[in-house]
């Protein structure tokens, strides 16, 4: 290589070069180098511009995911179906999720005097009849689903029989055409028996049986779901490994990922919500990374929020509980929604409305919604 090509080669790769002890005849410089260097400099400037454009080019940070979340169908036959899950990516800008998160309204088989006042006042007139209660939730408050809690079957509550439980289920099924979540009382001995009776009463309606956990006869619940065509809620207590184990056991009984929804436990805002954030996030990331034991949609018992003092306790300085309660429930649910949760069990109509509205944006493509102009907010905002 002659000096010239060497120099040009150097200029190609660098923005500037330091030339030490470089000597040349004036003539040579005049005749050969000047135009060549000029050309080289021009070229490197172009190069630099190109690099600059490259540097400021915006590329959306889209990751790829080997795994995906199973899609679970709830509601079948004449019932309006609702689909949960099906995500192939973590965020909407990577790929919008196929199904929006859904909210299911809590309804009880007994009048529930203990419900907080801001909720009771909406349902006072229908609390004697779970069917009417469910109807009101759907008709007036736009519920996509209803959860019927068979609290009355608790041995210490009213000790209702499996037969009575089945009747309550029939009443609610008659009253509404949305899918149901069927919850028992939380008694580890009786729950499987009650859920079995309820599953039979709701044959082929594809309800979600709530819930199987490691402390009760989960096999019986799994079998009831398989025999009568339902899905199962798999509940663990803020513990990813516990969740994996339980899911694996349920799948061993014959359920598929499409028949399971997970409840990793929702600790309310201010009462351990950070534990739920961590567990839920880890669970969803594991699913997308390909962990077959965790590729199910997730559920949140958002109503836990009403147990928080800030939601119910009278305190003049804190303002009215009418506002605090719904905000507490909404933010608890919203936080879980942003971690990937697909279905929310909730109580207050206002919370349900806000959460549904936010969730509905999750299925839209990025940059396809009409957005208002906010560029002059400093002057436009009222005092």
């Amino acid at each position: 290589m002659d000096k010239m090509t060497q120099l040009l080669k150097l200029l190609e790769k660098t923005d500037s070069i330091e030339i030490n002890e470089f000597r040349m005849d004036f003539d040579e410089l005049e005749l050969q180098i000047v135009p060549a260097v000029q050309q080289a400099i021009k070229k490197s400037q172009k190069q630099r511009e190109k690099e600059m454009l490259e540097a400021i080019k915006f590329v959306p940070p889209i990751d790829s995911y080997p795994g995906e979340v199973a899609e679970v169908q709830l509601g079948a036959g004449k019932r309006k179906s609702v689909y949960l899950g099906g995500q192939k990516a973590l965020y909407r800008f990577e790929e919008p999720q196929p199904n929006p998160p859904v909210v299911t309204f809590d309804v009880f088989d007994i009048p529930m005097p203990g419900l907080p006042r801001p909720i009771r006042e909406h349902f006072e007139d229908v609390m004697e009849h779970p069917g009417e209660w469910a109807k009101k939730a759907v008709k007036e408050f736009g519920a996509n689903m209803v959860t019927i809690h068979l609290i009355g079957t608790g041995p210490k509550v009213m000790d209702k029989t499996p037969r009575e439980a089945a009747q309550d289920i029939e009443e609610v099924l008659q009253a509404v055409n949305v899918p149901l979540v069927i919850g028992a009382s939380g008694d580890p001995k009786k729950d499987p028996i009650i859920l079995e009776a309820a599953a039979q009463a709701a044959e082929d309606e594809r309800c979600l049986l709530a819930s199987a956990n490691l402390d009760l006869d989960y096999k019986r619940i799994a079998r009831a779901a398989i025999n009568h065509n339902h899905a199962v809620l798999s509940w663990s207590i803020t513990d990813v490994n516990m969740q994996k184990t339980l899911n694996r056991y349920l799948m061993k009984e014959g359920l598929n990922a499409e028949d399971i929804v997970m409840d990793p436990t929702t600790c309310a805002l201010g009462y351990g919500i950070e534990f739920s954030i961590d567990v839920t996030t880890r669970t969803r990331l594991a699913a997308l990374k390909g962990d077959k034991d965790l590729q199910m949609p997730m559920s949140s018992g958002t109503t836990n929020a009403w147990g928080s003092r800030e939601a119910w306790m009278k305190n003049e300085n804190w303002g009215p509980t009418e506002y605090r309660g719904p905000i507490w429930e909404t933010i608890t649910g919203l936080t879980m929604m942003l971690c990937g949760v697909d279905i929310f069990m909730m109580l207050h109509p206002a919370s349900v409305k806000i959460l549904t509205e936010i969730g509905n944006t999750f299925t839209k493509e990025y940059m396809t919604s009409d957005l208002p102009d906010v560029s002059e907010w400093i002057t436009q905002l009222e005092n």
Partner: protein
Amino acid sequence: MRATAMDIYRLLPKTNCAKCGEASCMAFATKLSEKEADVSLCTQMTDKERDKLQEVLAPAVREVLIGTGENAITIGGDEVLYRYELTYYNPTSLVIEVSDDLSDEEFEDKVKKVDEFEFERTGEKLKLNAIAIRNKSGSTEKFTQAVNKLKDSRLPLILCSFDTDSMEAALKIVGDKRPLIYAATENNLGTMASLALEYDCPLTLFVPHDLEKMKELSWALRSKGVKNIVLDPGTFVKGGTGDTLDEFRMIRRLAVEKKDPDFRFPIMGVPAIYWLFGKENDVVKGIRESITAAKLMNSYADILIIHGTEMWELIPVLTLRQSLYTDPRKPQAVDAGLYEFGKLDENSPIIVTTNFALTYYTVEGDLKSGKANCYLLVVDTGGRAVDVSIAGNQFTGKAVAELIKEVGIEDKVTHRKLIIPGLGAPVSGEIEDDTGWEVMVGPRDSSEVPDFLGKLAEEASK
């Protein structure tokens, strides 16, 4: 990826001279990687070496300092996308906006409210962090008048105006207090950048709903030498929620995973914008603003500008902040032991609880507000709540028995009775057996404890 102790060690002098206060360079490197020491403690490096180390240590999201003195706030500093991977740093700053178009009285009222705002939760006093003065009037004169009123503000300031003359006038007054300038936009970038450099103040870059342009302008600011940048990609609500979430998350992912220098800055959200669009009444708007704030805080916002000042609106936002920014590596616990409330004598009742911070401070708050007189025995359950530690076997008869011996309560009271939480019922027998004391199961919620103790005292005096 974050620098490991080994990466850092390589850049240290490796003389183990111990001048930094650590026994060895490796120990110092470990401290640095945990963010528990400052580079300047090692006096054995040249400036160039130190700069190089600083660069390696710089968090994925740059830290930006706003204000001066003890109330100054630092925003940014995060290293990870998900808090469980490490922890989040520098809790989201909550800023309340005050318009320059308010009457003197309204202005003073609002500022006072912000200044005095306080909500105590689990032993921590949660507060608001800064005031944003908003050039609503559009007039330079009104803006400077408002800024003048806050010249001696205890809280740091955000100056909000797109007008460069107004900004310059305001900076002439408070430029030495390191306010955050809001904002450089496509239209005023050059002048705002010069002002930021001249007054050495951090600068917000406001580019609504256009990350492409945001990157370009951030690059432009950086090449002008502006180092302290805050990014506001615009806050959209209702149907725009999805786009705003996308943008916040993209910015943070670009910073943490791609180390994109144009996006490695704190993010600003403006929930106040909700008040522009909601046609509802003020209560509904307050509720929605609160929820918007929570949404953005959950999606990486490092600083939020809020309009409302109602307690019920801000409590949930402050609580969420406290939760998000707890360190997942540390249990939230108080010291176990014996605590005293009110007037005590040898007949005073003894109640028992666990050392989970939330549990302890809830009980403490109830005892104080109910003016209870009692001893509180706090059991070390590794920072777990009552029912959690019963489920996990940390709240046991043995633990209580040992604690009784340790704190010497036997010499302080003549009776031998303990009152345990309602949720502690399953272990009441066990505690009786192991301590030999009589155990009484109290109410479920500690707010009922003062009344409960009152009734006991009444019965005893009969």
